[in-house]
């Protein structure tokens, strides 16, 4: 479903700030794969997601989604294949627009915007049901501005927007990292539920090792722009945080794991 071949990306080439963010990364996701991505700061996790989304253009390599080559498509033209949730809860929604208006924008992802009315009554019914499934009471606040929602509520709404219309690939970029532990748990459970229900193919970056082990059917670890560990199936189910830390230090002896990863 998502084929990443020999992807490389260097930021600020030819300057003192030159940084090799992705170093010949290849990754093939089968339909329904839920892959969690861990690694230290600057390992290239977010860069990988942003290259798939089209925020950055890779230097070398190729990205395909369901047979479509994305390499030359700008960000907005990739959107019809992708659902995205960002780390910053403010990034995924338009604050001064209503909850239902935000959903309507997402519902039309990949379609031409016309002079038809922005939210139809039939849609409204559907959004009501969808919002109900979040269990946050947002279905009774559909015409409220998103600005009034908490970070967790906004992130849950963004998740709903990202999964509406079952995108080919769902990209989650540390989407629970900015939330308090209880809300983070709720958002992670909702993500897992949606992914399973719709059979979505998902790439989820996380700083939280426990989340990375608990969720998904496959885990990859990145360091210095490379994939250094790729486990799935039963092997993944047997992973422990301690085990991961050990594996990590085996692969990158000179790199110290950051505290957030260990404590998360």
């Amino acid at each position: 479903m998502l084929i990443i071949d020999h992807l490389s990306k260097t930021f600020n080439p030819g300057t003192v700030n030159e940084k090799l963010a992705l170093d010949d990364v290849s990754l093939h996701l089968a339909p329904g794969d839920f892959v969690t991505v861990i690694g230290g700061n600057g390992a290239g996790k977010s860069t990988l997601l942003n290259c798939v989304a089209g925020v950055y253009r890779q230097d070398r390599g190729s990205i395909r989604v369901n047979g479509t080559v994305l390499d030359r498509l700008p960000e907005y033209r990739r959107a019809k294949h992708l659902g995205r949730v960002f780390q910053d809860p403010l990034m995924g929604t338009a604050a001064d627009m209503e909850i239902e208006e935000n959903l309507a924008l997402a519902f039309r992802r990949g379609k031409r915007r016309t002079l038809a009315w922005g939210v139809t009554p039939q849609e409204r019914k559907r959004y009501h049901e969808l919002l109900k499934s979040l269990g946050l009471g947002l279905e009774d606040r559909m015409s409220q501005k998103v600005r009034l929602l908490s970070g967790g509520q906004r992130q849950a709404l963004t998740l709903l927007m990202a999964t509406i219309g079952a995108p080919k690939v769902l990209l989650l970029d540390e989407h629970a990292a900015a939330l308090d532990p209880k809300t983070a748990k709720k958002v992670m459970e909702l993500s897992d539920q949606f992914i399973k229900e719709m059979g979505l193919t998902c790439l989820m970056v996380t700083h939280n090792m426990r989340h990375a082990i608990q969720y998904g059917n496959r885990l990859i670890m990145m360091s210095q722009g490379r994939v250094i560990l790729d486990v799935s199936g039963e092997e993944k189910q047997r992973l422990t945080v301690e085990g991961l830390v050990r594996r990590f230090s085996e692969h990158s002896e000179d790199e110290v794991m950051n505290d957030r990863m260990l404590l998360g």
Partner: protein
Amino acid sequence: MEQVLLGALSLGLLWSIMTLGVYITYRVLNVADLSVEGTITLGAAVTAQMIYAGHSPFLGMLLSFLTGLLAGLATGLLHTKLKIPALLSGILTMIALYSINLRVMGKANLSLLRLDTAYTKIGGWLGLDKTWSVIVMGAVMSLALVFILYWFFGTELGSAIRATGNNPNMVRAQGIHTDTTVIMGLMLSNGLVALSGSLIAQSQNYADVQMGVGAIVIGLASLIIGEVIFARNNFLSRLLSMILGAVTYRIIIALVLRLGMPADDLKLFTALTVVVALFLPRLKEMRETSRHITKGNQHADH
């Protein structure tokens, strides 16, 4: 006095269309677009030249609107495709338009005295004098535009433009090309500003290459007055408040002039009004913060 207020009302209604244009860029798209200083004159110049050349004033108004769209397109392309900051893009268009406006008129100003304007036509049909035909025309057009804009910004396309001003990252993630939405917003805004210029030129019976100087500040002053005094928390009321704000601004100006302020100081007065209005929310914030701090200190003393 009645004549003064009627004059302020008619001028306010004509400028309210320009204020709606400023609202689209400043509030909806979240960019300060200075090209309007050139566009308002462009609208005036095009209509004046059309009337001067013997064409229908209504055809002139349509052409003014269309050339305004083009001016907005120029600013939009500079900003989105050449990645020039919005403020500078607007300034570049504004300066370029100065020469274009001189070309359109062939000289620095063009008189429409004793020529048929939209107002003389409407006045003739409805049996109204000049002042009242300006008021009727201004009221009908500004209200019609408010409802058209309200409809447009409720459509899929309009929603996409509103979201762009809010959060362009999110808009791109939903498959919308933000370059296109920014350009469309700038075009619509400048089209309205040019239409406003056309109506203003016809009411004052001339177009002048200098008439746009300071227009953005007048637009912002009207916008802020409208929002602060009249706007409620819904989109239709905010659009309507632009009309009320533009009229209120003109009434305030008429009153301070009557109280003896020299007309030469008008632009300084307007600029200061905008400075104060823009500073007010910040002042409120600062006072609230200092109140919290004082409270905290009192608690510490106990």
